[in-house]
């Protein structure tokens, strides 16, 4: 074997090993983050953490019941606003999106997908908080919905496009009008995929903090009124994590673990929903 040949084989082997190590490093980062969350947060998860509200600074104990309920309300409301618009836009792109408007909407969706969430936050502030004169959970939900729509639209479009043409043609040949074909046959076939996109979208916004800073604001007390400021887990983590007290840090880790668990459950559910339907499609 010539020296040159040997050198080339060594380079090839080294680079193969290097990219494998790099992949390992990336996975290691995930393990380290999740590991610390469990290590530092799990011990604080007890009954009172889930059912009690925060106590005044300096006292120990207390929980984040208000933040958990707030997260569910704000994210749920955002989904209520964002999902219909997102799914409708996605259906439009898949069914009628070949023209100029389709191209524009698709491009705008992709561009908005990368918009800094903080910018969406101040946008929601000018639209809802400023005219109403006070912060509100509703404004937070609207900001989150704005973040959600482009994402849902694009995944819905892709999932609907995966439906074979023969299905659509069969329905049309049987005399179904297009709208019924689209809703009853095409969208229904793609339902699992659309659902996956929705779950992923909800998971993504559930952890958002920046757009809530000037809209939902946060609230030390238990509140379920969507016209008043409301606490979320993400806001709670920010306040407690950057605060000066050890007790706050402890609660921040626990809240982060709960939030991460919530996001992971949604993400895994999305995976599962897709797998059961499309199997080897991806």
């Amino acid at each position: 074997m010539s020296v040159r040949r040997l050198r080339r084989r060594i380079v090839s082997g080294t680079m193969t090993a290097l990219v494998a190590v790099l992949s390992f490093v990336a996975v290691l980062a995930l393990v380290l983050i999740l590991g610390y969350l469990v290590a530092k947060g799990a011990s604080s998860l007890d009954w009172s953490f889930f059912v009690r509200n925060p106590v005044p600074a300096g006292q120990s104990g207390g929980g984040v019941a208000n933040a958990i309920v707030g997260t569910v309300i704000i994210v749920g409301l955002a989904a209520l606003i964002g999902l219909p618009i997102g799914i409708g836009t996605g259906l439009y792109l898949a069914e009628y999106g070949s023209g100029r408007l389709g191209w524009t909407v698709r491009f705008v969706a992709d561009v908005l997908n990368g918009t800094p969430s903080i910018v969406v936050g101040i946008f929601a502030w000018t639209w809802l908080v400023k005219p109403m004169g006070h912060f509100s959970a509703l404004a937070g939900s609207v900001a989150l919905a704005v973040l959600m729509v482009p994402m849902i639209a694009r995944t819905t479009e892709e999932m609907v496009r995966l439906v074979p043409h023969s299905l659509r043609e069969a329905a049309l040949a049987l005399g179904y009008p297009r709208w019924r074909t689209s809703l009853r046959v095409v969208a229904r076939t793609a339902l699992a995929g659309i659902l996956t996109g929705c779950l992923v979208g909800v998971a993504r916004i559930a952890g958002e903090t920046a757009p809530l800073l000037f809209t939902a604001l946060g609230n030390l007390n238990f509140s379920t009124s969507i016209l008043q400021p409301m606490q979320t887990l993400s806001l709670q983590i920010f306040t407690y994590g950057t605060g000066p007290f050890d007790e706050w840090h402890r609660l921040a880790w626990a809240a982060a673990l709960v939030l991460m668990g919530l996001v992971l459950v949604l993400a895994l559910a999305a995976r599962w929903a897709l797998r059961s339907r499309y199997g080897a499609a991806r």
Partner: protein
Amino acid sequence: MTTLPMERAAAPEPRWQVLRGANVGDRLYRGALTVLALTLPLLLVALVSELAINAWPAIRRFGLPFVWTSVWDPVAGVFGAAPMIFGTIASSFLALLLAVPLALGVAIYLSEFAPKWLRQPVSFLVELLAAIPSVVYGLWGIFVLIPFLRTYVVPPLRATLGWTPFLSGVFYGNSLLAGGVILAIMIVPYIAAVSREVLLAVPVSQREAALGMGATRWEAVWTAVVPYGQAGLMGAVILGLGRALGETMAVTMLIGNRHDIGLSVLQPAYTMAAAIANEFSEATTNLYLSALFEVGLILFVITVAVNALARLMIWRVARGTAVGSRAL
């Protein structure tokens, strides 16, 4: 149908009109979907105009020098955004410097070398990094990353490269370095996921041709596969840049939030997103608020430009697919 019987008799509806979608249900359906689809472009217009209107007082007052002056004095009412623009760009490029080799390595490994059974799980785990909320990254950064940097990274860096201006000054923790590292971890999944899709879109014949001519496996990847997907890979990197530029919470918690321009990565800095997050609710005067809106507008325009560029480059390789928006 509400058409009059007389008209009907005059012009019987041909069957093909049904197929072209001319009945009432179809027109309603299409109309409703079009209205929903129009929300996105309208939203974009509303966003831009709202930002521009609110930023207008500051734009008129300070003009273009807003971008390159560095005095930020709310009391005196003088605002210049240079330090945050600098900090935003510096932290993002530091993040790219660390994230690009890592993410490309992951993408190449997953698309070319990894055994079949490992591909799905590993790519899922890497993409899970994108699911971690920004504020959780920030918390982890404060209590895990900064102590780690202080003990294991900064001393050896100082020992070898301490003479350069990039490592001068005392390291307190919150710094450009901490912000850049956390950003790097955060954008790896995006760059890796899109790069992987781009590499998978490269035709197998490219690899076969190179291998057939006697190339080693790595040579085939590096000389035949990567150059073929070059535009798409650049797009992936630029997409990551777009994410890094607009990232808010983790950076706000780690970068130190100081209005200063310095070369040292060990010193605190500021970013546009962090400035808005920190100061928006404290902005007491209209001019102050307006200046923050102008910062938001600049940030928005930059990220839109960067994202549009990235999309166009990715579309050239993987036509019309929504790569990246699915990353999770």
